[in-house]
């Protein structure tokens, strides 16, 4: 019963945002896949968004929710750019592995 009353406060939002940020970083570092990396960044964004909204709700300030809307719009754009880069990279290298991502210029086999 005490756990339930704790969950009625702000703690579940903290736990979820921590889980989301953890999930984002873990997928980025552990899975070593470019496609997953782009998605992982979005998940970390979401965790931060949830923190902003929680603070805004419990402090009674609408600016936090405004930040969430702006971040949503920006992350949509950055996600599109990320996907374009991944598709282009796959066409050049025929691989999605993050470990083979050492190419900065166009020359490689010399």
């Amino acid at each position, binding site marked *: 019963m005490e756990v*339930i*009353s*704790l*969950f*009625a406060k*702000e703690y*579940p*939002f*903290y736990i*979820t945002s*921590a*889980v*989301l*940020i*953890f*999930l984002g*970083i*873990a997928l980025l*570092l*552990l*899975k*070593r*896949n470019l*496609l*997953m990396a*782009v*998605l992982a960044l*979005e*998940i970390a964004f979401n965790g931060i968004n*949830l923190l902003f*909204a*929680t603070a*805004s*709700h*419990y*402090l*009674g*300030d*609408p600016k936090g*929710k*405004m930040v*969430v*809307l*702006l971040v*949503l*719009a*920006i*992350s*949509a*754009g950055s*996600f*599109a*750019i990320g*996907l*374009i880069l*991944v*598709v*282009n990279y*796959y066409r050049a290298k025929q691989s*999605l592995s993050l470990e083979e991502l050492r190419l900065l210029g166009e020359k490689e086999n010399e």
Partner: protein
Amino acid sequence: MVERGLLLFVLTFFVLFLFFLTFIFRQILYQFLTILLIMVLLGIYYLFLNAEFIAAIQVIVYAGAILIMFLFTIFLFPEEELKYSRDILKTHYSSFLPLGFFLALFLFSLFKAIPKSYKEQNFYFDLKILSKILFNDYWITIYILAFLLSLPMIALYIFFKREERSGSN
């Protein structure tokens, strides 16, 4: 209050469950589906924070636009690229430790940083208040946002321009 606590408990349980499933699955498509479910559940979290508009936007923009874009991109790749081999998974599980440390530190600093006046304020999300702030005090962010959102279109243009050039050669 009991209903709120119970529902949030169940929701957090679901999110944790999906979080573990994300690491168990070995196909990107299934991982993607669990992440999609997490995103939709996040919309319900926003409902509990009295932010109905953000909840709707979360589902419409994230689940409806961004993740569908990702799904379309997944189908561009061959099937064997979308699976992980088993040995990669085994060697890297030890690196969960620093991440777990990070998570503990994060939660600790959060709980420590809670101000004393951190109580529920009965603040209801009002679009009119929000848009007044956004369009009067922070109008410059809207302009910056407009420029930023034109970047994907420019990137797409460059991408297809290069494709045309290499196609003609």
